[in-house]
């Protein structure tokens, strides 16, 4: 809760007087404010720059250096001020945090300097306001990455630690060629052989002149079949060895085998082995020829050598839905126009538009403004629709493509940012849960007292969702067995158990209270139960309030131990012995 809203708590409490005449039950005693707010100035001298603020402003956040007694260590007697030998520019933001409840991150400051100051003054960065949080996290991440890169570079320049197993060493050599000369050599050799293999596949199909005893041209592949075969064998052997080595070295073999690169590796070398197996069978040799097409996948092995290729692959993957939509709309348009053209050209003689699928080709060529001219409409209607087709092709293709490109760029950055923000939010919630953004303990106890007064007014209690639902089921059970009520009242140990059971017992006691009897007598009877909720040693005749402050979780786990005890000290002689882990209720503050 913002510090500002805390300023309205006295108002809310005063307004609670409006509930008093209609209250069903007597009100709990309010928590005592042990010290009246001594509202004096505090002078903070930060490296010569003097800041002044109210004492209560600083004490809003008692978990920090300035809000707690820790600042006494910096008190300078002679000048009667608190002296800090720190950066005054950054301190300005820290002091603003106390004033407004929001911590901002100044963009011009260095992130590490800022972090250091926050750490010194005991402020957790997770409470940086939403306006500056993203920037802060980005800068922090960049910084961390930079540090990591520096470390990696140092690591790479070092001699490899000897305690790596051979397997780890091998994997490291594969993943990062710069670790050792051997890895670098291996990297270049495989790159070279990939290039050789791809080039061989290409050259193999070039016509190489005629053989002496034949009249037609033969391709180089057929002419120098043996040479190409030897080359292919060598390449495949290298690739197989590489694949097996990677498989052995991989830390997680299953994960490795499922990765894209390994699939590409397998697809690249499979045709050769299948070819070896199948050469003698004429029927499948045709299929074998098609398999050779897959050899072109070897070119994708270059993506291990090129980061850019990897990024392209990733971006295509992340942009898949946009591309899919483009494809879908194109398909729709193609089908529509092909149908129209087919029926338009049906009448004309010797038309090339023999069927709608045949018209697809025309539509695609026209819409992409290629216009090969192998299929042209002859009828007037056909020409009219043909021109509409090419015009709409310009629109359908040319317009979305830049939109897709910019869309893609925007979505790419946005998804990065959304991911970042999600991760940030998760860590932010975790951080918030860890430390109080909430106000001081007196505020908490006063707020809980206010909520307690409301409970007393309506004679209902706040519970959390689980207990509520557990109770809905319990009530039906308890309703049937009225005799349980008496037995429950006399067993103290049952009430010291976990809160869920306490609440179940409580529900059985609520049954008498719904009768329209004298409310006061019921309250006296209920008192013991409620008292024992807060302690095991409660005196039954005390009309002591429930300190169910403790039952409300404040998001601050830092304050688990002390304040609760102090707030209930004067209110009841009973000690609050139950553990905080039995907290059932949640306050969102």
């Amino acid at each position: 809760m913002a510090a500002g809203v805390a300023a309205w708590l006295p108002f809310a409490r005063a307004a609670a007087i409006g509930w008093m005449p209609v209250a069903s039950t007597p009100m709990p005693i309010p928590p005592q404010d042990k010290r009246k707010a001594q509202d004096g100035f505090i002078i903070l001298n930060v490296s010569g720059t003097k800041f002044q603020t109210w004492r209560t402003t600083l004490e809003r956040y008692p978990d920090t250096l300035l809000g707690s007694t820790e600042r006494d260590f910096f008190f300078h007697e002679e000048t009667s001020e608190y002296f800090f030998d720190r950066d005054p520019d950054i301190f300005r933001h820290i002091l603003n945090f106390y004033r407004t409840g929001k911590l901002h991150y100044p963009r011009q400051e260095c992130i590490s300097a800022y972090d250091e100051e926050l750490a010194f003054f005991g402020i957790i960065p997770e409470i940086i306001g939403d306006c500056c949080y993203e920037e802060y996290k980005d800068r922090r991440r960049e910084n961390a990455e930079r540090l990591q890169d520096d470390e990696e570079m140092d690591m790479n320049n070092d001699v490899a630690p000897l305690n790596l197993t051979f397997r780890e060493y091998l994997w490291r050599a594969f993943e990062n060629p710069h670790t050792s000369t051997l890895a670098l050599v291996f990297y270049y050799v495989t790159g070279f052989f990939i290039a050789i293999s791809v080039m061989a596949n290409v050259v193999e199909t070039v016509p190489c002149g005629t053989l002496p005893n034949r009249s037609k041209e033969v391709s180089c592949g057929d002419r120098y079949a043996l040479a190409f075969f030897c080359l292919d064998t060598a390449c495949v052997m290298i690739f197989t060895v590489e694949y097996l080595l990677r498989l052995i070295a991989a830390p997680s073999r299953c994960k490795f085998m499922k990765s894209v690169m390994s699939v590409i590796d397998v697809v690249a070398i499979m045709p050769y082995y299948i070819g070896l197996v199948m050469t003698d069978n004429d029927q499948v040799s045709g299929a074998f020829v098609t398999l050779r097409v897959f050899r072109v996948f070897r070119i994708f092995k270059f993506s291990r050598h090129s980061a850019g290729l990897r990024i392209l692959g990733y971006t295509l993957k992340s942009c898949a839905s946009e591309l899919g939509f483009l494809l879908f709309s194109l398909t729709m348009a193609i089908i529509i126009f092909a149908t129209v053209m087919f029926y338009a050209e049906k009448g004309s003689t010797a038309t090339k538009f023999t069927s709608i699928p045949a018209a697809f080709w025309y539509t695609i060529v026209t819409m992409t403004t290629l216009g090969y001219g192998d299929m042209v409409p002859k009828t007037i209607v056909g020409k009219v629709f043909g021109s509409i087709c090419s015009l709409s092709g310009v629109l359908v293709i040319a317009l979305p493509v830049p939109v897709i490109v910019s869309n893609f760029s925007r979505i790419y950055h946005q998804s990065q940012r959304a991911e970042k923000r999600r991760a940030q939010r998760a860590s932010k919630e975790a951080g918030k849960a860890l430390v109080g953004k909430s106000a001081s303990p007196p505020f908490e106890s006063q707020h809980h007292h206010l909520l307690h007064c409301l409970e007393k007014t309506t004679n209902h209690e706040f519970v959390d969702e689980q207990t509520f639902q557990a109770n809905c089921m319990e009530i039906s059970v308890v309703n049937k067995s009225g005799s349980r009520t008496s037995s429950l009242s006399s067993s103290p140990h049952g009430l010291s158990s976990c809160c869920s059971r306490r609440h179940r017992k409580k529900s059985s006691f609520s049954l008498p209270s719904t009768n329209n009897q004298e409310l006061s007598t019921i309250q006296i009877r209920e008192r013991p139960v409620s008292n024992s909720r807060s302690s095991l040693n409660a005196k039954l005749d005390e009309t002591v309030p429930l300190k169910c402050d403790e039952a409300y979780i404040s998001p601050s786990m830092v304050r688990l131990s002390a304040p609760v005890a102090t707030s209930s000290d004067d209110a009841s002689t009973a000690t609050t012995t139950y553990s905080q882990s039995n907290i059932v209720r949640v306050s969102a503050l």
Partner: protein
Amino acid sequence: LSMVRHQPEGLDQLQAQTQFTRKELQSLYRGFKNECPSGLVDEETFKTIYSQFFPQGDATRYAHFLFNAFDIDRNGSIRFVDFVLGLSVLLRGSVTEKLRWAFNLYDINKDGYITKEEMLEIMTSIYDMMGRYTLPSVRDDSPFEHVEKFFQKMDRNRDGVVTIDEFIETCQKDENIMASMQLFENVI
């Protein structure tokens, strides 16, 4: 987003009108100004602030009634002087004055009588603040029953309305109510 800015009357005037000391008024104004730099609280802001104290339920309806109780001149916004006058009654006023204030809160149309309908609205809004997850769970007729109990207690001549005199008289006879009226003396 209105650029209306309101300045309160002088400190001396406020001191004369209320029962707060100078220092208390200063501290109150600082908190007020911090939250509402324009010097005015409109109903929406008021509802937002008040709802923050009751996270489990819906406090907007009750905040509406509370707003009307503070906004004495019915101009749609609470100025600092309204704020401080109301607080002065609640925190430093006599029990009779506090009871009058409460009566004014319940009397929605400010006609001097609390009818069952008005009380039912107030009661419903209070129960709304409890939210869904309560023990025992709030039934649909809980507010109605509560109102019946209230009228049974307060409506002496059984004419279906509660007048200010009946209200004050009955409350003064009830110890619990008298005790709870003194509860928030030292809030400021």
